[in-house]
């Protein structure tokens, strides 16, 4: 559930990704309820307490809106992604569902599948502020993010102590020192699931975020031009990091999250000191240790370090999350339901049940886990949050970008190649 921010693309399950596009659909049951008083709602909180909590939320909504019925379908994340993809193909969507934003959403908007919420939910959109940026197309808002996380370094505080590291690094230079210290202590500094590509790509996203100004990045999303020299610079910065050889053995085929030998598994089992990952990491690590604790109280977190001389804002963060969207043909009451899902009460309960990182400021204090609370603080202090590039640019451009970045990790592509390959895929989109 935690890793819901990104599709879980393990080596084994990357076949499950197949589904993401071809997808599997129980088309036999019509997804949209059809009449105005029934709202069909798909979500991926299929474990307790989330499942029960959402049932309660739906009941409360029904009580406040007599005559309206909410039909819930709770499913595993991968199943939901698959079924949604099939639903997009057939046009037979549930009334309320999850959108990840960016290019994917733009495609759905273009196909006329998603309802514009700008007017009907203007109050909530104001309340969410910059958080909705990833779910806007041409200035209109199409979904309301209910959980939004940022990517940063998760680390093992005990291993840091062992290597005599006092403070988590704040600049790249400090990060290199930390890597040297860890290596000197016989500890593998970092794990990365480059086999799944996107975990490797996150590094470049961050070096690009630190190297390029906000306007350059925003412009790239709309113009699909990557001519600014900062994009090449991003690759060079990353190359410097890769040259310190900080990664786990076999990182080129390491999966992101599946199994004890995945990147997350290595961090969870004290095999490496750090991993760059999103807010889902503690939850993933819990599932990867036999005691179900993950790193437990050894868990630490620090944001991606500053790059000296970069034009990007050092406080800007890379992130992403999930948002509630309403399908084009849904009844109006579905919009009411979505705004209810973003209300103070529901979001506080959401945070208390550890279901994600709430976007409603009123729920911030309800996050109890210290590492997550710290992450939330960084998120809320960020001048802006850049949506994962692969999500922002869409599968086609994002996929080409991720592939090229993975090649850089294998020392088979240059910083310029990343820009060229991305540009080539982007030119096809124009």
């Amino acid at each position, binding site marked *: 559930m935690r890793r819901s921010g990104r599709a879980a693309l393990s*080596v084994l399950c*990357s076949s499950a990704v197949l589904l993401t*596009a071809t997808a599997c659909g129980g088309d036999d049951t019509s997804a949209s309820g059809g009449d105005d008083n029934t709202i069909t709602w798909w979500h991926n909180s299929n474990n307790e307490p989330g499942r029960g909590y959402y049932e309660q939320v739906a009941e409360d909504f029904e009580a406040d809106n007599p005559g309206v019925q909410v039909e819930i379908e709770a499913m595993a994340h991968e199943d939901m992604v698959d079924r949604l993809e099939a639903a997009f*193909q057939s046009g037979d969507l549930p009334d309320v569902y999850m959108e990840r934003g960016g290019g994917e959403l733009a495609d759905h908007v273009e196909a006329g599948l998603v309802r514009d919420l700008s007017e009907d939910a203007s109050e909530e959109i104001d309340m969410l502020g910059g958080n909705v940026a990833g779910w806007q197309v041409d200035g209109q808002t199409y979904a309301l993010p209910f959980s939004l996380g940022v990517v940063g370094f998760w680390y093992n505080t005990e291993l840091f102590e062992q290597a005599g590291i006092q403070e988590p690094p704040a600049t790249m230079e400090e990060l290199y020192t930390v890597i040297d210290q860890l290596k000197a202590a016989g500890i593998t500094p970092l794990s990365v699931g480059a086999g799944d590509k996107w975990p490797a790509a996150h590094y470049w996203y961050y070096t690009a975020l630190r190297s390029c100004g906000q306007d350059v990045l925003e412009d790239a999303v709309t113009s699909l031009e990557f001519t600014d020299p900062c994009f090449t610079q991003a690759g060079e910065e990353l190359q410097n990091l890769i040259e310190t050889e900080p990664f786990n053995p*076999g990182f*080129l085929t390491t999966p992101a999250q599946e199994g004890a030998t995945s990147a997350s598994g290595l961090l969870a089992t004290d095999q490496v000191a750090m991993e760059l990952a999103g807010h889902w990491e503690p939850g993933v690590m819990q599932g990867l240790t036999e005691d179900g604790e993950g790193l437990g109280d050894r868990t630490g977190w620090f944001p991606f370090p500053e790059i000296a001389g970069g034009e990007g804002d050092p406080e800007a963060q890379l992130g992403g999350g999930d948002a509630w969207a309403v399908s084009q043909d849904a009844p109006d009451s579905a919009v009411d339901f979505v705004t209810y899902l973003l209300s103070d009460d529901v979001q506080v309960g959401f945070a208390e049940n550890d279901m994600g990182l709430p976007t409603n400021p009123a729920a911030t204090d309800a996050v109890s886990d210290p590492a997550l609370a710290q992450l939330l603080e960084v998120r809320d202090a960020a001048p802006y949050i850049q949506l994962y590039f692969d999500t922002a640019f869409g599968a*086609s451009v994002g996929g080409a970008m991720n592939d090229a970045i993975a090649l850089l990790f294998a020392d088979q592509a240059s910083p310029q190649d990343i820009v060229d390959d991305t540009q080539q895929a982007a030119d096809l989109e124009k």
Partner: protein
Amino acid sequence: MTHVTAAPAATDPGAAVTRGADAPRVTGRRRREKRRQRLEILLFVTPALALMAIFVVYPVYSAARMSFYRWKGFGPMVDFVGLDNYALVLSDDVFTDAVTHNFIIVFASILVQLPLGLALALLLNRRIRARGLLRTIIFVPYVLAEVIAGVVWFQLLQPRSGLLEQMLSSVGIPVPEQGFLGTPDLALTTVFVVLTWKYLGLAVLLFLAGLQGVPDELHEAAQLDGASWWQVQRRISVPLIAPTIRTWVFLSMIGSLQLFDMVWILTGGGPANATTTMATYLVSQGTQRSNYGIAGAASVVLFFIGFAMAVAYQFLVLRRDTKADA
């Protein structure tokens, strides 16, 4: 079955095919018999042809149609781009590398699995102790699902912690820094070794079937003439099962060109595209990048390469076998 026979005859190419049979030369009773025969043929082949038409030909046709459009997987296909997707596929280094990998596997299979399979089949055809058990054992990997075999091998091949590296280092053999699957230069070889482990059983199975058809008398006669076991195998058994060998080569070629499951599970085509095949390329283009047009073009190219090789092989090698049959 009702499902199948109920399929409309119009979609059934066999119907048209049999109707066109040489009519002019026959007359009277023979013509009636001919018509009756045609009806019977139709009845017999319709279910199979209908199934093939619906579930094989039509989807392949759709994939081919897709290749002329830019399409993201939903909404109507409207963005016609002509042959652009083909140009993209053929100029994509990743795809041309994938073709190279496919051909490396094709030739490596023939060069390695053929002699190995033949040797094992000859061995298992001898009167050695526990022959039945040995035969059984050698088929085991072939029967395993790719997913299951993949999961187990993935564990075995883990860098450092995997059993294989632990065993090698314990006897002092150096292991690659990034592991067998993680080193681009070694990954394809590693995948090929796993493939050989998995599919050698099929070669042995086919060769054994062929060898059982070689009459014992031949061996006895040759033996009386003073020929050694090896001479008998080389001069008699192997030539006699040559058609079997050619059939296996054909199947192996096709299988190698279509290679997908094991690669997908072990490496997903990585590291650094070192193990991509045409099939993994098209699946990742289609389903991960939503470039369904490019995926369609890649599948058409894959089909034609397979088709060309099959035709060439038929002409160069298999013709001998079918001729003998007529």
